[in-house]
């Protein structure tokens, strides 16, 4: 193996290096503020370098593989994490966290490494390690807030649910191994997978992935964890973690399980309907914004399945495109909720009554983000949803599209409830005006930019589409 082969996995390597640097910094300095800044700057570098062009290829005897599409996915995750870091810089400075700043960054980076491996995996061992690396640190992050009961509760719920789901998934993988005889993706793709036992095994595997993406009925941890975890961790869970899992699932479905596509298409059909509907029905009744956004993200996962279900390059492109938009959009929403939570400690929808009077810019941003989530033009969410639906329609699933759009209408209802709270409802005692920190502003402005630009500027989509056919 030549040295330049390592270029192929530079995302992982760079992240590891960044992780180590933070670790060394943590050991060598007492000034935690600096660590925060250092991490952001380091990560900025990682993100930028990630965009440098590299060849495609395989490493470690096909255990690790990369392509332009995969690099793109990783870059998307990097961008999302970068925005998250910007948004978290102010939050992490609060007194209750000030002794564990570097933990936050290190845990996040390690999960990111795990996700990158997960996306790039060409073998189930690699996939499994990546998956666990992406999950276990998050459980620690969920329980990050030592002072709150719910944070510990979120942690325990996440780690145990995840352990269960991993167990079931592994059981499925073990049966696949037993029937195929290899754990290489390429071997698996070439094998006949069309027996009842393998179908069973596949569904066990799918359940594990469904857990990560929060598909119904594997989603129940989502709301509790989002609510209990610190808000920026929820934010990370809802976009980056979910995005990585979506990418992985899509790649695996499109490559490894290509031969049983008709089967998983039907499975996705059912799960998509369940996920959208149940997510929406729960979101309707939420009063806590974090919990609200949790269910909204469940519903969004259901929409994403509409892209995956297509099973062609069109579907892949629409999924990647949607996740990109979703990252900006949801980070925008979470960013506002986080900024307000940091400034006032309020997370209830009723607390937002009359917010526009005191904090017009944040209200507008939240409104834009919510509209984007609901799929209202001209913001990007519309384009994202439209292309997802196009992908589903491309496979002839018109009724599924119809159900999805009806669900989108229901989702509009609860998004509008928040808009109503901010713009219409009167409040004697609204959240007072506050000035956001510079980093927060940057984080939010990036979201605004993304929310507008990604949809209207078609090159973004075309760029993704270009790579999506080659898997």
């Amino acid at each position, binding site marked *: 193996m030549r040295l330049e082969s390592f270029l192929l996995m530079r995302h992982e390597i760079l992240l590891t290096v960044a992780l180590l640097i933070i670790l060394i910094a943590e050991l060598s300095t007492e000034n935690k503020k600096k660590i925060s800044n250092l991490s952001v700057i380091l990560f900025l570098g990682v993100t930028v370098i990630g965009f440098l062009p590299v060849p495609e290829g395989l490493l470690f005897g096909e255990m690790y593989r990369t392509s332009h599409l995969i690099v793109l996915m990783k870059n998307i995750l990097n961008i999302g994490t970068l925005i998250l870091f910007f948004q978290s810089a102010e939050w992490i400075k609060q007194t209750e966290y000030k002794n564990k700043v570097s933990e936050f960054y290190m845990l996040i980076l390690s999960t990111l490494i795990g996700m990158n491996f997960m996306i790039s995996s060409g073998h189930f061992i690699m996939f499994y390690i990546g998956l666990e690396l992406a999950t276990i640190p998050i459980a620690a992050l969920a329980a990050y807030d*030592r002072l709150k009961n719910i944070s510990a509760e979120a942690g325990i719920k996440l780690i145990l649910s995840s352990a269960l789901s*991993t167990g079931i998934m592994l059981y499925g993988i073990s049966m696949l191994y037993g029937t195929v005889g290899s754990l290489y993706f390429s071997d698996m793709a070439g094998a006949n997978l069309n027996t009842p036992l393998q179908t069973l095994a596949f569904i066990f595997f799918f359940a594990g992935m469904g857990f990560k993406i929060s598909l119904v009925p594997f989603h129940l941890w989502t709301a509790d964890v989002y609510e209990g975890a610190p808000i920026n961790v929820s934010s990370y869970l809802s976009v980056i973690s979910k995005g990585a899992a979506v990418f992985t699932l899509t790649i695996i479905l499109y490559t490894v399980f290509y031969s049983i596509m008709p089967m998983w298409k039907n499975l996705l059909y059912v799960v998509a309907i369940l996920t959208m509907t149940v997510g929406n029905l729960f979101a309707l009744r939420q009063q806590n914004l974090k919990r609200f956004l949790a269910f909204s993200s469940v519903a969004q996962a259901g929409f994403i399945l509409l892209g995956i279900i297509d099973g062609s390059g069109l579907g892949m492109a629409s999924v990647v495109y949607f996740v990109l938009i979703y990252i900006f959009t949801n980070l925008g929403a979470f960013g506002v909720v986080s900024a307000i939570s940091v400034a006032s400690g309020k997370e209830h929808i009723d607390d937002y009554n009359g917010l526009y009077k005191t904090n017009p810019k944040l209200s507008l941003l939240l409104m834009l983000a919510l509209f984007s989530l609901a799929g209202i033009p001209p913001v990007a969410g519309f384009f994202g949803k439209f292309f997802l639906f196009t992908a589903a329609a491309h496979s002839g699933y018109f009724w599924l599209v119809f159900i999805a759009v009806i669900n989108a209408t229901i989702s509009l209802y609860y998004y509008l409830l928040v808009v109503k709270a901010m713009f219409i409802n009167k409040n004697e005692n609204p959240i007072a005006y506050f000035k956001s920190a510079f980093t927060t502003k940057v984080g939010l402005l990036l979201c605004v930019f993304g929310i507008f630009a990604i949809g209207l500027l078609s090159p973004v989509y075309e760029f993704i589409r270009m790579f999506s056919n080659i898997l």
Partner: protein
Amino acid sequence: MLSQIPLSYFLIVSTLMFFIGVYGFLTRKNLITILMSVELILNSVNINFVAFNRYLYPEQLQGHFFALFVIAVAAAEAAVAIAIIISVYRKFMNIDVERVDTMKH
């Protein structure tokens, strides 16, 4: 020697372990016990992998290695889980899973 024990015996054992694990996960009240149930599930998987490898595909060691990784990762997982359980204990003053339900609906 091994050949006198058919593969199905291993599979039966692993399946039993799997379901015992699941049952334990669903019924035990103590968080530690639940964690142990999860370990049972993972071990049943390990038995599967090793047995399949040994009986069906002895020329490669993919199954064995997978089992090794599962063991290693499970250890890490258990470590984190126990740390969180301690945190739960500090907050709730017990580790009964049914008490840990402040967030719902």
